[in-house]
């Protein structure tokens, strides 16, 4: 086994991982950074983000507003002190990215422009056409090349983290091109492996979004927090799940049912608006919009498409081709190539799809996990800003703000921590190698990976969809337990060393099953409805008495996870009714009045 000695190892080369790497490098150029990614960093799923990143920009906006939008949008399950820090840092980080070359879209006078996004009171989403994530990721990746202390391990797959002396001290990775193992020793370990949405069937996510890092931390005793909160994005391409960004609605798109009726006005988001109006109608939060779809379907008012299933229409026609090509070029192309339709002439069939995991590795406000030396950032983490429902465009900003925090903290830790016991670590790493190799070399299995995966994703969709019920959630929990058993009996076709994706997929599936269990068990345990977790079996209301709490899932080897409840940090925003549209405006005014 190869050994590489670093000061900080970062697992994940997406927006979060790259930002952290740069932060460490800027803190102290002498610190050696190992940046591990199972794909070339610019292929990370941050690349797919379309809409943009939130940060106060306009003079009419304020940190206060951004704070309240976020906390209210999260149905009060946010760590409010962390949100405060977040909103204040956001504009600085977005400006930093501009200095690094990010081609943010601009106004005529050359300043950065902002657009409207769902659940946001004032336009504050910085965007680069509808390829914001792409530009953020490439800017970060290219900027990272400037720092010689960042040693990249591209196309290296992390199979475990190393824990010794109660501290996290490294990671074990496989070089995909050779199948060989490397132990990376480091005093600080940052996990930035992204979300886990691929445990569901129809999702907006890339194939790599398999929750690896979550499972790694989880198996080392770190809690996965708020895993039941899985965001459905209301406007996805049927079957494939590909995303039509919220910016489609931010720019003025309508959602209509089979009668051409803008049904959102029936779901507390009205009254009807012609022009996009923040927090009204199509600019309501994602959970509400996805839920409205569910009820429209129940009422038989969705469009039944022969091959696509139940859909509603995203209507952009009134915006005109020129405007659409300028503001939503990617969307335009996607509609043309993938669906063979022209959004300037035809409405686009859409329906909700899994998009984002609000929960993740539990950390404090400085991104530190309960295991010393371990940090988590980005979608795989739960630093506490998304609560029960993330607002669109908060996540890309999160990558930057907390990527930097984690980098700085990890650097500090690396400088102060005592050197590890290399011999003991190597022994551990060798044990990991043996365990992982056994998965490949074992013979006689009869279960196909793809079959188990298919059953898992279907079952997650059935049990942990937009609306949930005890019975179906239980069925999902049972199914997952069964699949865990069957996984032991898998067979891997490919026994080779070079580029063995068959084997790596199996390791991913193993991770996914763990994460899926954490989600399903957290969900069944939450007997209320809040944000993205909505129940139809007698728990339709939010229950602040019993459940203004974080769920924390703890790994139990060979059994279902243990679910505990943790406190929520509330500073200045007391839980209130979560209302949008005209009712929301009224509530806003009342809150203001009571403050004066």
């Amino acid at each position, binding site marked *: 086994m190869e050994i590489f000695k670093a000061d900080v190892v970062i697992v994940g080369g997406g927006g979060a991982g790259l930002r952290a790497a740069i932060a460490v490098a800027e803190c102290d150029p002498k610190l050696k950074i190992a940046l591990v990614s199972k794909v070339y960093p610019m292929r990370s799923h941050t690349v*797919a983000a379309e809409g943009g990143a939130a940060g106060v920009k306009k003079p009419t906006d304020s940190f206060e507003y951004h704070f309240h939008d976020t906390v209210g949008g999260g149905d009060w399950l946010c760590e409010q002190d962390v949100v405060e820090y977040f909103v204040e840092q956001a504009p600085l980080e977005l400006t930093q990215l501009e*200095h690094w070359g990010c081609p943010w879209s601009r106004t005529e006078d050359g300043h950065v422009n902002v657009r409207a996004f769902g659940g946001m009171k004032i336009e504050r989403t910085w965007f680069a056409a509808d390829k914001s994530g792409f530009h953020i990721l490439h800017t970060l990746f290219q900027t990272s090349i400037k720092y010689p202390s960042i040693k990249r391990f591209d196309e290296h797959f992390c199979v475990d983290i190393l824990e010794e002396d109660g501290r996290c001290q490294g990671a074990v990775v496989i070089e995909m091109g050779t199948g060989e193992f490397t132990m990376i020793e480091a005093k600080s370990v940052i996990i930035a492996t992204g979300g886990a949405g691929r445990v569901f069937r129809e999702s907006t996510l890339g*194939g790599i979004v398999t929750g690896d890092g979550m499972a790694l931390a989880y198996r080392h005793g770190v809690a996965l927090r708020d895993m039941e909160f899985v965001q459905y994005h209301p406007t996805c391409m049927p079957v494939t799940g590909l995303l039509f960004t919220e910016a489609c609605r931010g720019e003025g798109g309508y959602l209509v049912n089979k009668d051409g009726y803008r049904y959102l006005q029936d779901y507390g988001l009205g009254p009807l608006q012609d022009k996009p109006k923040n927090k009204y109608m199509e600019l309501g939060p994602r959970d509400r919009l996805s839920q409205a779809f569910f009820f429209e379907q129940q009422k038989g008012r969705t469009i039944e498409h022969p091959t696509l299933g139940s859909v509603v229409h995203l209507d952009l026609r009134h915006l005109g081709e020129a405007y659409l090509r300028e503001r939503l070029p990617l969307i335009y192309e996607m509609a043309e*190539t993938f669906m063979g339709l022209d959004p300037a002439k035809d409405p686009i069939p859409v329906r909700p799809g899994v998009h984002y995991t609000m929960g993740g590795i539990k950390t404090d406000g400085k991104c530190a996990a309960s295991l010393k030396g371990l940090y988590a950032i980005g979608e795989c983490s739960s630093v506490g800003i998304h609560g029960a429902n993330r607002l669109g465009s908060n996540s890309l900003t999160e990558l930057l703000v907390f990527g930097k925090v984690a980098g700085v903290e990890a650097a500090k830790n690396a400088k102060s921590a005592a050197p590890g016991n290399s011999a003991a670590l190597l022994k551990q790493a060798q044990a990991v190698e043996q365990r992982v190799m056994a998965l490949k070399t074992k013979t006689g299995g009869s279960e196909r990976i793809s079959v188990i995966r298919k059953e898992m994703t279907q079952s997650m969709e059935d049990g942990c969809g937009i609306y949930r019920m005890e019975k179906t959630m239980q069925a999902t929990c049972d199914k997952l337990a069964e699949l865990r058993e069957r996984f032991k009996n898998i067979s891997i076709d490919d026994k080779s060393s070079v580029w063995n994706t068959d084997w790596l997929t199996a390791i991913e599936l193993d991770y996914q099953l763990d994460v899926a269990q954490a989600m399903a068990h957290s969900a069944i345990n939450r007997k209320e409805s809040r944000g993205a977790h909505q129940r139809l079996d007698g728990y339709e209301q939010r229950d602040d008495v019993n459940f203004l709490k974080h769920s924390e899932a703890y790994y139990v080897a060979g059994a279902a996870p243990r679910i505990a409840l943790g406190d929520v940090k509330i500073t200045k925003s007391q839980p209130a009714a979560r209302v949008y549209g005209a009712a929301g405006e009224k509530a806003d005014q009342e809150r203001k009045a009571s403050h004066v």
Partner: protein
Amino acid sequence: MSESQKIIEIEVLRYNPESDKEPHREVYKVPFSDDMSVLQGAQYIKDNFDGSLTFRWSCRMAICGSCGMMINGIPKLSCETFLRDYYPNRISIEAMAHFPIEKDLVVDLSGFIEKLESIQPYIIPREARTLEQGEYIQSPAQFNEYIQFTSCINCTLCYAACPQFGLNPDFIGPAAMALLHRYNMDSRDGGAEQRMQLVTSEEGVFNCSAVGYCSEVCPKHVDPGNAVNINKINAAKDYFLRFLSPKGGSK
């Protein structure tokens, strides 16, 4: 699956470095529906017939740049190429041309990544600015100078298209030059001179004979061939004018 299922034949160029001397072709019969991409065809094979079939993919929406292949001999992103457009004929897929094959459809990209790193693909500020001073101001005209060259997804289809790269793997190539040009043209950047050494070098732009196929196959309309050719003009200027300018051009 319904009984009216259509079946398409997919011929794959397969290569396992541990057991094959050289690549060989294998044909699979894949049931497909009209919305299925070539990538999904490959996934179907991996899931149902042979788990050892190896290819890169992730986003499925033509933005991560991992799924390039030769499809009937033409470099394309397999996630945005549809089986229906080839049916009822057999479709052939093969690893991207001009790159060494690692295994099946996976090629060795390390050379490309080195090239990307060698062009100094980051802002070398023309004038420093603090965060408190806010963003740089960039007029629409300045913005339009470079924006097209930022759209490159590093899919390397242009390299699979460029015979000059095939003939000389050291050629810095279209996408890396497009990225270099992107930074040179950015009003925030002042590093053009530093990058000139590479442009004018033996690995630089003069390997290009204006074949132009790179721009033809680029899925993101980056027009990398244009970036290469514009820089021939820049390089020639640098070559002839270096004796005139006080700094003597780049050495």
